[in-house]
């Protein structure tokens, strides 16, 4: 490879480091320990959308132009989510976790990195059908105000309902899925009863601490965006926030295997990434 090419790449990496450092020092948003490989891709996509050529130019704009900062914050995270994502996860939750929850007088649940709320409404529906919802309190948190606003509204595109209905049934749902929402033009609004016991609030896993003790914590497809150090830190935070014998759920392709807390959990079900704190 030519030395010129190598130098250019080096400069790019330094610029990205500086941008993330600046963002943290000026605005307190800490993306320094996010997985560089994927954040780099997104930064480049965003800077092209801003019609800029270099990360340095982008940094200057982010630090001085608030509208640009907002666009950056929205674009730099991935918010993709869906209802009953990985239906077998919810099916296993019904079979293996619900019986455990029946034994508790009250259940505190934390959904960390809830994005626009699809996962929250899914779990609320499941708990409602198992007649557990009344004694549950769900804390749904995310780093982004913008997605939390949408989660609170519970308004999702009508076009997604076909897939979600199929997911819901694969996840063990036995009712009419459409009973849970009202369709309006091209959107649906989920029943407000489903968020009666939900608290949506801002929480940054990278910089904020624990705020309660929970019997269930779900943190799915969030830590894949973190590097190993941050991932380890967040695993510790979640472990510390979970009560003994509490249940911990990860995304389908995530694993405790490569983390420091591995031995302190047992599998409820290897395939569906549901664990129980045992030590």
């Amino acid at each position, binding site marked *: *490879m030519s030395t010129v090419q190598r130098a250019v790449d080096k400069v790019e990496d330094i610029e990205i480091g500086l941008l993330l450092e600046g963002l943290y020092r000026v605005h307190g948003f800490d993306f320094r320990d996010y*997985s560089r490989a994927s954040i780099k891709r997104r930064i480049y996509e965003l800077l092209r959308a801003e019609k800029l050529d270099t990360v340095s130019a982008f940094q200057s704009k982010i630090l001085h132009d608030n509208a640009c900062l907002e666009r950056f914050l929205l674009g730099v995270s*991935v918010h993709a989510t869906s209802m009953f994502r990985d239906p077998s996860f919810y099916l296993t939750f019904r079979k293996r976790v619900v019986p455990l929850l029946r034994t508790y007088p009250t259940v505190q649940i934390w959904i960390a990195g809830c994005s626009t709320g699809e996962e929250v409404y899914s779990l609320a529906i499941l708990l409602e059908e198992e007649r557990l919802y009344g004694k549950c309190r769900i804390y749904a948190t995310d780093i982004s105000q913008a997605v939390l606003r949408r989660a609170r509204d519970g308004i999702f595109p009508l076009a997604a309902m076909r897939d979600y209905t199929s997911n819901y049934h694969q996840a063990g749902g036995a009712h009419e899925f459409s009973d849970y929402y009202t369709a309006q033009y091209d959107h649906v609004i989920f029943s407000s009863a489903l968020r009666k016991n939900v608290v949506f609030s801002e929480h940054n896993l990278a910089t904020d601490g624990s705020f309660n003790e929970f019997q269930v914590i779900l943190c799915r497809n969030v830590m*894949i965006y973190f590097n190993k150090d941050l991932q380890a830190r967040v695993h510790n935070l979640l472990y510390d926030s979970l009560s003994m014998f509490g249940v911990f759920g990860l995304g389908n*392709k995530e*694993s405790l*295997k*490569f983390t420091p807390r591995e031995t302190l959990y047992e599998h409820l079900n290897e395939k569906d990434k549901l664990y129980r704190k045992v030590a």
Partner: protein
Amino acid sequence: MASEIVVVGTSTGGLKALQTLLSGLTADFRLPVVIVQHRGSTSENGLCEFLAQSSRLPVTEPEDKEPVMSGRAYLAPRDYHLLIENGSFALSVDPAVAYARPSIDVLFECVADEYGEKAIGVILTGANNDGARGLAKISSQGGVTLVENPETAASHEMPRAALAQTRADWVLPLEEIAPCLNKLVSAVAVHYGS
């Protein structure tokens, strides 16, 4: 410069092509082989097991932060992009790139970044142009590039698109790709390019 990783991208016709490729690699092939095969978002659950049957290297779908190990083949899981960072896999659910998730370009560009001249990129049969940009990046970083001969590929678009952007080091019929990789990888002492 000794290579450290092989990445392979394919779509239409890829199943048979991957069988041929994997079955041709020697049991002591000492590099990790990381594969992106475009796949529907619901079907083909047994793809990994299927490929494992014709491979002497173990074939698995990596999980997030799993270390990349030599002498193993990895298949990008469906519905995630696959990246590599500091010797471990990193998954993402970023939007599809050119309708594809996993995307060949995403893996190849990332590997070009991570491994530079120590990467070997392989483009096989396929019916779109994913991978062309990624292979070009591997080449620009001094990595080694192989493309299946479009004349004999089951689907010629993907190899052709790759060749339109990259002067590949080797353009070979499918059967000759594994032998070429075996040679490239065992001939550690040979100095490639400059």
